């Protein structure tokens, strides 16, 4: 924000507010839209104004970092770190962990079986759907062919009707001419 904008205030109507019936969700949407509409360069990069040097970051940390005992503990922990897998192996109930791992694996396998069965089912459905699509395609193709044939047939029939009408008209005229000849 530049110097001119310092001390800025919202202008009347910048955000539409119904003061009789405040709708926080709507106002927040307008604020969010307003922020989103800012060009990329105008977006504010938040910078830290101070580094929070904590007087006591958390009471737990205070406990953790104070005293010779804590220091000794940290050194001991560092020293024993390379041996931690061995220590874990000796201390922890390996059988229980092994059993738990087997159970987890078993559960995972079952889940995998279930998922692969589901995949097979979905695959079958997909194939069936594809067959249906093919059938529908040939059906619509056949319908189009049949409709074309019917159209041609209709045209032929119309033509035949017109010829027959003309023949009928001619025969009518001829009939009248023959009647005249007989009456003479």
């Amino acid at each position: 924000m530049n110097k001119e904008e310092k001390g800025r205030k919202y202008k009347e109507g910048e955000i539409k507010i119904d003061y009789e019936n405040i709708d926080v969700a709507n106002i927040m949407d307008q604020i969010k839209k307003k922020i989103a509409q800012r060009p990329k360069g105008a977006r504010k990069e938040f910078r830290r104004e101070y580094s929070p040097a904590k007087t006591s970051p958390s009471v737990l940390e205070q406990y953790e970092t104070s005293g010779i005992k804590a220091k000794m503990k940290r050194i001991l922990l560092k020293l024993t770190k390379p041996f931690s897998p061995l220590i874990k192996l000796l201390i922890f109930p390996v059988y229980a962990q092994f059993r738990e791992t087997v159970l987890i694996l078993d559960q995972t396998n079952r889940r995998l079986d279930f998922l692969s069965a589901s995949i097979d089912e979905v695959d079958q459905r997909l194939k069936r759907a594809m067959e249906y699509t093919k059938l529908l395609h040939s059906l619509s193709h056949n319908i189009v062919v049949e409709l074309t044939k019917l159209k041609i047939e209709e045209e032929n029939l119309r033509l035949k009707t017109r010829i027959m009408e003309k023949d009928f008209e001619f025969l009518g005229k001829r009939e009248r001419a023959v009647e005249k000849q007989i009456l003479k």
Partner: protein
Amino acid sequence: MKVAFVCQRYGMEISGGAELHCRWVAEHMRKHWEVEALTTRAFDYITWKNHYPKGLEVINGIPVRRFSVSKTRDPVKFGRIQKFIVENEHRIEDELRWLEEEGPSSPPLIQYIKDHQDDYDYFVFFSYRYYHSYWGIHAVPQKGILVPTAEKDPVIQLNIFKDLFRMPRAIVYNSKEEREMINALSCNDHIPGDVVGVGAEIPSHFSSQKFRKKYRIDGDYVIYIGRIDENKGCDELFDFFLFFKRETGLPIKLVLIGSTILDIPPHPDIHHLGFLSDEMKFSALDGSLLLVMPSFFESLSMVTLEAWAAEKPVLANGRCDVLKGQCLRSNAGFFYENYEEFEEALTLLLSSPRLRRAMGKNGRQYFMHHYTWETIEQKYLSLVERLEKEE
């Protein structure tokens, strides 16, 4: 009807959190039930060292039975176990070890509950995550009512708690969001429950002028009330406020009330006043333009409710579902999820006294509708009545 309120700590000196919530509810329900408080002798919430004398004590007319904490907490060990269970695959035993280490471990309290369960009709347990609630509900599931005061922190995912939320006779939630979170986590929709929360104790007399005179605060200010702690989002608030001051140049001050475990940046417009009495706290609130609530984790912010009771709008951290939900439902607060939103929302609130008044009014209405003590008491009574009928 005799009801025991079970809480990790209980005392007049404890000024916030689930403990104060418990005390207030117990004191109000005294009108309707015969009430007792069962608690430990601890005062320090880090080590749970025995502080209060053992035995029976009467606080504001409520008999309080205190039981010894058998093992103080080793914060280093506890921190290590918590880190392990949050970050690694682990067993139920590890979670129980964490619970034991978290404390306040008081087997005599659980034994008392077991031995005297017939003497009480219900036990109301506050704070799901502590020893007393877990083992207490296991001891008397059919008489246990849980007030979880749960926040969206990692330990709520522990398996022991998923089971715990399916055990009690009823659950009293603090907010709709808390209920949804717990229902989603533990599929405990079948457990009877209600969203109740807590009321606020508003002093009969308070005056902003008295406050301004005493602490020599002049001009406009926004206020934060509560523990000044990283977990409460205060470091972010300082960052945002200082950046806001530099960017907008608005002559606004930030007044902080509460004890601190964080270094407060030295700035002429940031005033830390420490812990104040209720009367002075409300006086400060009364003189402020709005309350800022930067906390990430809340199950129900009592201070937010107090601000609404005092007709003040709130600017809350939108990354806390509960605060965001309350702002939306009450139409009495804005929320932010980053600096830009903080700046826009705060500028809008500071620019318009009319908007602040309208939102403050909404806040007051919301408070009067949901959080007066009559409403809270009635909700507790209805829940228990429902349980009685079910029986």
